[in-house]
């Protein structure tokens, strides 16, 4: 029932990707220059004049992701705005991302294609490692609520693993497993909540999660203190609960619709066919080779309604290899935030005492 959709959107070798993405990214640069005054000013101020030739992705201009917090950057008119997405900044400033109807549909479609690569087309019974309280106010979801809701499309018969007080609901989880545990099922949650509330409970109560497919995201900051990194996370789940199909992902509201997904080999994130990453030296901005950690630049051909096709993040990462893993292209890891960068991210809004 959970036949995967071949390799879905993880098919292109690095050279194929480069030759397909580069002209599209150049087109997007021109498109956003012509449709957004602020972006056009930034380009001309940084020497990226119209008609300049780009020989590779690394030559393209990029925007610091932080700019979306201070500038209105969009390439559509006010009356075309269908949805405004906001990030969950912790110091008050939030990114604002503007989508028209087409862009909103495109991001949903591409996210879906990406996730279906590991889940298949069928919706699976779904255990949500969160509380229904986060979507109680239907008029204003937090970024965390919006993330959970987006993933719920991939599931059916949803069960919440935490009660309204954000405590693990052992009976609900046991009920879910009794009903669905003998067939493939989906588990979704933010990384540190999955660890704190599902892993420890499953270990202590010997719950069998061996038919589960876990999709999780949100960063490792809160788990590093407990000496839990991605490798330990995978090892412990496999050893104590039987859960081996685990897919971490990296994504951000500024590049909505793109998720960099952990492959079946574990411990490496891969870029979908319409996206790529470049690691840069934080001092010189030079592109770094595999093995050397630096700032993560994300590239994607999805953003048509705002200039988000080439962004320099505040995250540190490292490319482990190219065309040498479970899927083709670059495989990489996120190592954390650039020191002193503002703390940011959906899961940061969770205020558990344990955090």
């Amino acid at each position, binding site marked *: 029932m959970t036949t995967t959709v071949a390799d879905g959107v993880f098919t292109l070798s690095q050279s194929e990707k480069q030759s397909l993405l580069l002209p599209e990214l150049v087109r997007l640069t021109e498109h956003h220059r012509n449709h957004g005054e602020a972006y056009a000013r930034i380009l001309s101020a940084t020497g990226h004049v119209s008609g300049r030739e780009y020989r590779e992705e690394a030559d393209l201009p990029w925007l610091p992701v932080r700019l979306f917090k201070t500038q209105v950057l969009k390439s559509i008119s006010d009356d075309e705005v269908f949805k405004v997405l906001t990030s969950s900044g912790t110091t008050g400033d939030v990114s604002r991302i503007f989508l028209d109807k087409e862009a909103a549909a495109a991001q949903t479609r591409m996210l879906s294609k990406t996730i279906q690569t590991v*889940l298949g087309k069928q*919706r699976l019974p779904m255990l949500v490692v969160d509380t229904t309280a986060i979507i109680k106010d239907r008029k204003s979801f937090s970024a965390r609520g919006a993330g959970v809701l987006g993933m719920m499309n991939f599931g*059916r018969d949803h069960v919440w693993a935490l009660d309204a007080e954000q405590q693990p609901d052992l009976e609900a989880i046991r009920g879910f497993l009794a009903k669905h545990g003998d067939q493939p099922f989906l588990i979704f949650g933010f990384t540190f909540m999955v660890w704190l509330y599902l892993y420890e409970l499953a270990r202590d109560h010997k719950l069998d999660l061996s038919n589960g497919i876990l999709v999780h995201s949100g960063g490792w900051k809160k788990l590093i203190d407990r000496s839990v990194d991605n490798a330990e996370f995978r090892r412990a789940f496999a050893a104590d609960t039987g859960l081996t199909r685990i897919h971490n992902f990296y994504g951000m509201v500024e590049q909505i619709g793109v998720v960099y997904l952990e492959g079946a080999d574990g411990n490496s994130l891969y870029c979908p066919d319409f996206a790529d990453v470049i690691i840069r030296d934080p001092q010189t901005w030079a592109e770094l080779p595999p093995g050397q950690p630096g700032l993560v630049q994300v590239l994607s051909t999805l953003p048509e309604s705002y200039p988000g096709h080439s962004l320099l993040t505040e995250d540190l990462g490292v490319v482990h290899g190219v065309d040498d893993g479970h899927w083709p292209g670059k495989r990489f890891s996120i190592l954390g935030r650039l020191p002193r960068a503002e703390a940011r991210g959906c899961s940061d809004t969770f205020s558990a005492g344990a955090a």
Partner: protein
Amino acid sequence: MSNVDRLRKSFRTALDLSSDYDVDSLEYRGIEKWDSLAHMALVATLEDEFGVMIDTDEVIDMSSFTKACEILTKQGVDFGE
């Protein structure tokens, strides 16, 4: 009850609309009550009512009453025109 009436009734139940609400021209997010949460309730209601399995692509594609009709038709539900 005809299949199209069963479909209308499912929409009214899932979206919490009155029993005489005209649902035939409804679009996703066209009214406040058809939001992303209600959409999941709608999908579950349709699966129960018509005994079908709706996949992820269809969930995303189901952007109007008319689209729901098309998707169910493909699954073998006869709306008889």
